[in-house]
């Protein structure tokens, strides 16, 4: 009697689990419809980004979100508290500091430089000297005035020998910068303060990206330079959590691991932002639950069919499609016997069904990439670019041409060695898809595929640096200037690729500030990269932002995130 009760109870528990899961599957089963709708391929000028999809029914907004009147909340993965620009170690801290500081020069949605704190700038004819003209009456968030001295101080500080951040300013070859770093000079020769509103900097060699790199955030000399002694930068650590800046918002409170609270900065040069309070809420992993319960107002999701449908069904969010300014690629070990040969690399590009992997299996949340540039950049082009459309026959022909003939067991070999590809990927859903499809693709080509997945990114990079791999999946960090996407080919990161023509073009591209000229140069560069394939380009991602339908004036810059438009946001 008691035994049957036991079995019955066990069944009940198991059954209730099943029932609750099934009953949650109410509202329409659109899973069936999501089948195989390949995304429209990007046109030459700009990707097929439609505009904002408006919220259908704002009354569905959760109460927590309805009750807020002057606060906007956005999710952020993990801000750690080091909010001083140039010194933070994590990208998320960068998100925070972008709200607290304004640069001298910013970029518009195409990546073209536009004025911010600097109302104009001059570039000397030899492209070596940049002179910035600051706006009048600029103030820091504590009310103190911002002058050219602060700009000069910021640039000098970054040349200190103890500087451990990742700003590119020290790499720009400012005149006298090297001497300062080595302690031989007490100031930098190339930096000149002409008057309180004008400051100029001279480089030793032209570099078009210097405009935005040097024209970045300004640190207050009075605040950040008070205890500055050459070679001693530890005092700055104490200032990380009490930033003084020029951004639209000031830091109100930082609750570690939970929230970063901001309050509008009345000294902001464009006038006080419309919404008084702003909060970055720490949210790891699935942000769905926070959006659905109204805890946050803004979140980003991969642009899969399903995500978009689900967002639409929520009813109270606007949906903004968006292509991030990065590209994904397979890093190739150019010292590998087979991969040295351009034909083999091209064969892989033809032989991998990238359309299936990155677009179809991803429900349309991506596009195939063929050049080292993001489709939203002003330099993007498809002229003269080989799309490497999936063509296993062509791939096989190329491999045969390269001398890799199919052996007895179906695997190609040359000089007695088999063609194996050792692939490294990091643990994510995309990698699973890649490995599964690539396995089949490579089998068809007669290549032995040995995939390896790493949960720990650091270990993966370390292995790649050690040369113990053949292919590895990466994606670039945020690219601001088109040169950013090319730097890895010239600075020695891609071992074994040393093409003087490439380097020549790269330098040329930075030597001028004329956009049209640069566009032509980059077109040539992209065609070169597309043909040689020093890395195999794979994909662009497509994402959507979903935000509380009450928020007006929302816009997201692909290069600067929400910071540029945030001062104009307000809740209806």
């Amino acid at each position, binding site marked *: 009697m008691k035994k049957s009760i036991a079995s019955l109870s066990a069944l009940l528990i198991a059954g209730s689990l099943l029932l609750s899961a099934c009953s949650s599957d109410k509202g329409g089963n659109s899973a069936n419809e999501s089948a195989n709708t390949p995304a429209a391929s990007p046109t030459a000028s700009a990707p097929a980004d439609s505009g904002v999809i408006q919220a259908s029914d704002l009354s569905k907004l959760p109460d927590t979100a309805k009750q807020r009147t002057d606060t906007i909340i956005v999710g952020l993965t993990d801000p750690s508290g080091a909010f001083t620009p140039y010194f933070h170690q994590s990208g998320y801290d960068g998100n925070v500091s972008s709200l607290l500081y304004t640069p001298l020069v910013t970029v518009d949605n195409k990546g073209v430089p536009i004025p911010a704190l600097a109302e104009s700038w001059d570039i000397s004819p030899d492209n070596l000297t940049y002179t910035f003209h600051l706006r009048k009456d600029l103030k820091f968030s504590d009310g103190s005035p911002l002058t050219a001295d602060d700009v000069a101080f910021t640039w000098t500080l970054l040349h200190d020998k103890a500087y451990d951040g990742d700003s590119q300013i020290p790499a720009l070859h400012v005149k006298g910068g090297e001497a300062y770093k080595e302690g031989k000079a007490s100031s930098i020769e190339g930096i000149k303060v002409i008057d309180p509103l004008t400051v100029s900097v001279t480089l030793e060699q032209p570099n078009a990206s210097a405009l935005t790199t040097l024209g970045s955030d300004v640190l207050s000399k009075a605040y950040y330079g008070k205890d500055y002694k050459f070679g001693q930068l530890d005092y700055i650590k104490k200032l990380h959590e009490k930033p003084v800046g020029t951004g639209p918002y000031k830091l109100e409170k930082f609750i570690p691991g939970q929230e970063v609270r901001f309050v509008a900065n009345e000294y902001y040069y464009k006038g006080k932002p419309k919404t008084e309070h702003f909060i970055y809420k720490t*949210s790891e992993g699935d942000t769905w639950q926070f959006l659905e319960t109204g805890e946050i107002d803004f979140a980003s999701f991969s642009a899969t069919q399903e995500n978009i449908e689900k967002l639409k069904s929520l009813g109270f969010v606007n949906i903004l499609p968006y292509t991030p300014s990065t590209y994904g690629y397979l890093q190739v070990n150019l010292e590998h016997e087979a991969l040295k040969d351009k034909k083999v690399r091209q064969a892989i590009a033809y032989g991998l069904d990238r359309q299936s992997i990155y677009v179809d299996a991803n429900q349309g949340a991506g596009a195939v990439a063929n050049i080292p540039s993001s489709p939203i950049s002003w330099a993007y082009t498809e002229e003269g670019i080989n799309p490497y459309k999936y063509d296993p026959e062509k791939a096989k022909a190329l491999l045969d041409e390269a001398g890799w003939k199919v052996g007895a067991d179906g695997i190609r070999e040359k000089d007695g060695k088999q063609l194996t590809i050792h692939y490294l990927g990091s643990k994510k859903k995309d990698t699973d898809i890649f490995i599964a499809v690539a396995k089949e693709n490579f089998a068809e080509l007669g290549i032995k595929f040995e995939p390896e997945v790493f949960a720990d990114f650091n270990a993966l990079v370390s292995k790649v640096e050690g040369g113990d791999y053949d292919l590895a999946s990466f994606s670039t960090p945020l690219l601001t200037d088109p040169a950013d996407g090319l730097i890895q080919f010239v600075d020695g990161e891609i071992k074994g690729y040393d093409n003087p023509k490439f380097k020549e073009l790269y330098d040329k591209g930075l030597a001028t500030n004329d956009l049209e000229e640069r566009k032509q140069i980059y077109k040539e560069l992209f065609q070169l990269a597309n043909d040689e394939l020093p890395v195999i380009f794979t994909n662009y991602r497509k994402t959507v932002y979903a935000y509380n339908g009450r928020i007006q004036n929302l816009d997201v810059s692909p290069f600067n995130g929400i910071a540029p438009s945030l001062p104009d946001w307000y809740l209806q």
Partner: protein
Amino acid sequence: MSAFITKRLLYTVVILFAASLLIFSLYALTPGDFITGNIKLTPERKAELREIYGLNKPVLERYAIWLKNALHGDLGYSMAQQKPVLTLFNQYIWNSFLLAAVSTFLTWVTAVIIGCVAAYKQYSWFDTLVMVAIFAAMSLPSFFIGLFLIKILAVDWKLLPPGGMIATGSQATGLAYVKEVIHHMTLPVIVMTIMGVGSLARYIRGSMIDVIKQDYIRTARAKGLKERKVLFTHALRNAMLPAITLVGFELPALFGGSLIIEKIFNWPGIGQLYLTSFGLRDYPLLMGFTVLIAILTVIGTLLSDILYRVADPRVRLQ
């Protein structure tokens, strides 16, 4: 007794030194270091940074530097967070402690009650139901239960918040703050308790069943003692003996944070911090935390052993 404690303390110190060296070496041997993960840097810049951080020195030298500082109370600066390690601990550990303390307390109380009643009514329907429920709780992964409950209770029924420690943007202080934290704490504590109660209750139940069968319990009943006194004064005390060993293990868990729970519920605890730091190879933080847990573990086991001797007079001291 005091000779025993002194001897053990000596062993403890030796073990801690050995453990810290071993742990430091393990972290240093893990492929990749703090600089490796940042793919924006050029190879020269990487070399420069390694120089600045002292990461290019041999392992033993780095250990010696760390040890010297640690013995003076300086656990260094977290490389990723740019803050002193001790400050970070202070900011995060107490959140973990809160969750752990409450759920441990609830776990033990619930387990003892359930275990006792089930043992007393062995083979009754209550006993069987409890046993099945225990088995069920022990048979599902914790993240599964956590996500499931979030989905049902937080998203669908909107009873409890889906995560975090306080409501976003809340300005509550004092009692209102306490209420809010309790509100947010409910779900994680429920999950942690469910996970922990199962095995402990079963353990206690088994122990109680054995003890109840003993002759001295029969004697106590025969003497006419009230059943409650028999159960609690005589049976429970003896049944708890083997469980005493487990108390010591709770000490490191109280401060170590639960990686899974904190991840799922976005609870700002030390476990989450540790996980992130490991991916970044933030050595000062990793060492500081691991050594702290090591110290607590060793103290915990010592505590366990002492308690065991104190509680069970039959165990001879050597």
